[in-house]
């Protein structure tokens, strides 16, 4: 089997969809199979996966934390769409300063950038797989 490169796009939010968990199960198997993940791109409601403030009860899975750990362990770049993020209150220190906001909450290692990075995935990755909400 030839290893392929993938971009994963998550548009469903944790706790209002299964998208982040399906995407994580898929991403783990991709690496097991020897494929490469070029980038994970959060778009629309999916940006809520990058909130450092999500705090589920301690006996429930914390999807943002699970994802952050997976990304860091495997050095996979992860981008949060800036327009989707600003609307939904996902803010890094740069945007906090630009918009003079009272705080920031972007979970590392996610970074904020534009849709250009999604376009790049469309052009460069062998496969682009979307994980949408199911409502």
């Amino acid at each position, binding site marked *: 089997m030839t290893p*392929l490169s993938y971009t994963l796009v998550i548009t469903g939010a944790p706790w209002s969809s299964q998208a982040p968990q*399906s995407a994580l199960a898929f991403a*783990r*198997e991709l690496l097991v*199979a020897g494929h490469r993940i070029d980038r994970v791109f959060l778009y629309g409601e999916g940006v809520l996966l990058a909130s450092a403030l999500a705090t589920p009860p301690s006996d429930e899975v914390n999807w943002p934390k699970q994802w952050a750990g997976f990304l860091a362990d495997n050095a996979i770049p992860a981008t949060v769409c800036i327009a989707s993020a600003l609307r939904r209150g996902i803010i890094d220190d740069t945007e906090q300063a630009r918009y003079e906001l009272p705080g920031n909450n972007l979970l590392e290692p996610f970074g904020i950038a534009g849709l250009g990075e999604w376009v790049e995935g469309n052009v460069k990755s*062998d*496969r682009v797989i*979307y994980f*949408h909400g*199911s409502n």
Partner: protein
Amino acid sequence: MTSTQPANPTLHILNKPPGHPRFETCLQAIQDCDQLVLTENAVLALADRSVTLPAACKAMKADVDARALNEQTRTGTIDYAELVRLTAKHSRIISW
């Protein structure tokens, strides 16, 4: 759009429950050479008597088990390793 394009085998990944408009559109869009995978809420199609599924259809085992649909034998089930293999095999993939 007048000319009929040659069919290109497509992997359809469907996560919407039966009755969702996109569930219906997806089933309409599937061609004979295509593969369908039911994930998340779409696995409810296994229990829905009103749904006619295409021949090349698999359901995600984890989602089937979660919803206690493992007695339903309308399709085979696959795991994430197999889903990865299907995405590698198909150059065209549509997530509904």
